[in-house]
């Protein structure tokens, strides 16, 4: 659990720095996010006059939900101790909880920005969540389980060939991941231009330690999705249950490598594409939803695709 917590800002920092490099900027160092977080921690929290208790509790709850969800994803080894306490559907739903609270928090102060952010976030969620569930279904149907550990070990085994439905699910999952993490082209994590914000609009009123929590959970979420993709579609190097310390070490190394590759790809993708209008987003995510549905349908009607 602590591992993901520590790694998350690193990934974000890595992506940012790669992006800067790609734009031929110098860019901040990779560890800049850690500094940001620490700085924020030291600052006073500024609250709006009419912020309620919900506003103050929300960051911790969001953080907790995201953290637990992230901790439940196998990073370098299958067979986590408590992996049976929540399966993939539950993980998706926990992220949903976090988003739910975040959206509420965005509306708490009663500014238009918060409302705009929450409303758009909710709209995006209505696509990304079903798409995610579809992907989960596809995986579950292939692996015969919604337990992530089981899925991962199944993927490791040789029983999986190349399958159309898996490919569809992968594409869909990447699209969902992009949307969920407020990356370009759905949202721009770096912008503060009001009309285009989604995620940032919701957290506009946060400051100080509260913002730390929110930022940290956003980073965690990015890590979560990357590890999820890695664990399901590139499970190589995952240490099996009860393996020796060497296997774990290999697992950790493979994991970090995977993260690096993913971060690189993400940065590449983001620099090469423009942000789309908010009302184009449904088309983008609708495509993800359709891909997920198609993948699942294929699985339903045929066992070999």
């Amino acid at each position, binding site marked *: 659990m602590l591992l993901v917590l520590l790694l998350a800002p690193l990934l974000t920092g890595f992506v940012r720095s790669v992006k800067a490099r790609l734009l031929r900027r110098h860019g901040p160092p990779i560890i800049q996010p850690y500094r940001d977080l620490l700085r924020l*921690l*030291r600052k*006073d*929290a*500024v*609250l*709006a*006059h*009419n912020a*309620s*208790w*919900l506003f103050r509790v929300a960051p*911790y*709850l969001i*953080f*907790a939900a995201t*953290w*637990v969800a992230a901790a439940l994803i196998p990073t370098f080894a299958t067979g986590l101790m408590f992996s*049976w*306490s*929540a399966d993939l*559907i*539950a993980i998706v*739903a926990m992220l*949903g909880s976090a988003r*739910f609270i975040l*959206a*509420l928090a965005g*509306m*708490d*102060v*009663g500014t*238009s*920005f918060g*409302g705009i952010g*929450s*409303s758009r976030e*909710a*709209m995006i969620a*209505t696509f990304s969540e*079903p798409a995610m*569930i*579809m992907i989960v*279904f596809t995986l*579950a149907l292939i692996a015969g*389980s919604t*337990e992530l550990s*089981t899925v991962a070990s199944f993927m490791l085994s040789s029983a999986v060939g190349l399958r159309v439905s898996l490919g569809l699910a992968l594409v869909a999952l990447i699209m969902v991941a992009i949307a969920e993490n407020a990356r370009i082209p759905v949202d721009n994590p770096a912008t503060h231009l*009001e009309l285009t914000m989604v995620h940032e609009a919701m957290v*506009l*009123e946060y400051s*100080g*330690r509260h913002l730390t929590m929110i930022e940290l959970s956003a980073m965690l979420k990015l890590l979560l999705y990357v590890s999820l993709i890695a664990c399901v579609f590139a499970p190589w190097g995952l240490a099996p249950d009860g393996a020796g310390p060497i296997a774990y070490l290999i697992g950790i190394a493979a994991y970090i490598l995977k993260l690096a590759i993913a971060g690189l790809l993400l940065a590449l993708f983001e620099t090469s594409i423009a942000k789309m209008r*908010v*009302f184009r987003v449904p088309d983008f995510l609708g495509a993800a*939803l359709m891909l997920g549905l198609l993948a*699942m349908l294929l699985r*339903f*009607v045929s*066992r070999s695709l």
Partner: protein
Amino acid sequence: MIYGVACVIALVATVAALAQLTGERSPVSTIVLPLGLPWVGAHFRLDALSSFFLVVVDLGAAAASLYAIGYGRHEGEPLRVLPFYPAFLAAMNLVVLASDAFTFLVSWEFMSLASWALVMVRHRDPDNRRAGLIYIVMASFGALCLLLAFGLLAGPEGGYAFEAIRAAHHAGPVATLVLALVLLGAGSKAGLVPLHVWLPLAHPAAPSHVSALMSGVMTKVAVYGFIRIAFDLLGNPTWWSGMVVLILGGITAVVGVLYALMQHDLKRLLAYHTVENIGIIFIGLGLALAFQANGMALAAALALTAGLFHVFNHSLFKSLLFFGSGAVQTATGERDMEHLGGLIHGMPFTGFAFLVGCVAISALPPLNGFVSEWMTFQAILLGPDVAQWGLKFTIPAVGALLALSAALAAACFVKAFGISFLGRPRTAAAERATEVDRFSLASMFILAGLCLLAGILPGFVIDALAPVTQSLVQAGIPVQGGVPWLSIVPIAASRSSYNGLLVFLFITASAWTATLAIHRFASRAVRRSAPWDCGYPDANPITQYSASSFAQPIRRIYGTNLFRARERVEMPPPGDTAPAHFYLELHDLIWEWLYLPVTGAVCLLADRFNHLQFLTIRRYLSLVFLALITLLLALAIWD
């Protein structure tokens, strides 16, 4: 006073039913009273299914009565509520207990009648009268459908007792027709699309504790009716019946929640959500039918358990939410969300309870709504094993609809809670709102606690449901009581499991850890300041995001076809100080395409026939004469 007594009685009944459901005693007890149809008698039977629904009904009733002890004091005309309230409760209990067609229908209709009287409490509002009319007509339609179904089941000899019906073998077209009629009958009461139209009108019209009962409990009684007839009395389902139920359930879920998103009347929004949840329940039931037709008893048991669990859950959080909306109404006199806002400051406890309800109904862990939806998903995942191609396509599609409706529900409750409780007060009434009485609060907190308990300890509920599924689909999912750490494992541990308790503990623990860590290491200072306003200070709370603006993105995406939503903005030319206008047009296509033609036809025929009131004597005589000639001619030709 009446509420207090009702509360105690309902509690006793709950405990008794619970004991019956979980206890060691013989699972079925029967009693026949010499009432009702004389040669049949009034049969009452308490089996596992009845016991479960008794728990649901009486738990809801107890909570509502407790709530009403406080809420009822604000009632303007208590005499219009008090006589009907106990009657309504009694009728719902009787429906669940009845074991012959006549008693069942009497209780069923009496339930409609009593609730109609309660809907008509605020009769001075013409909208409520209209709601009452539509409600009672739809209820009567449903009851007539059930009546026809029972007529078929009982046969021309009139074997109305459920034992006799169970003993008879029903197959072929009769079974088909019965199923269709039951879907119409129970479905119209439960609020299946497109028979739901009365529901969002009638539920909000009643006083809030009654709304809670109607939404949280009465619709469940309708579900009971469906289960009783489709699973118990009819038996041997066909696969396509499962498919029909599935499709209806899926459509109901999505359409219900989309309608809910378009509402800005808090209680109506909740009522549309009832429609959605009924859809989810029916998805579970449809899956159970489909699996049963394929001989997959275990899967059927899982699906049925999921549906029943959702019945239980929905009764909890929907009652809770209606209580919350009632509290809001008491405090502010408003149901329109556009006139609310910032209530969390004046009513923190109500706000908290309402939030719990919102999270629960949005199917978010670690509360109970998630568990039942999770189980439904698990059941869907067993879908590829069915044999029929129709089902193979339907089940995943319905799964997608279910997922969609869950996400939309979350969006909807962000809106409901965010607009009414958060933000700044939009009216003076909302600003002045204060906390409601302690009975109401106690009732809400009890329900919220139950939501949490059912969410983190679902295993107990599932075990309690085992006898029900055992009796209906001859299988139960594995006993959950023995699974370590109190998690639930519907099929096998390797396949899927969920542990609400651990998730809850984890989240709490990490939230505490984070809080402690932050508070230890970080600055604890808090500064209050004005929110960021882009440099344009606006004091007017009306400029906040409103309910309809919140729904705008979703409305644009989903509503353009479904509601034929049209927006129009009129901007004054630059320099003109006239206000800009925003027009929004929404159409209820189901109402316009299905119900308006019917009412139009009735009106047209009524007008046509009405000419016959104004004929002359000679013309009336001509009618008599024509009748005579016709009959004589018939006589001459006959033979």
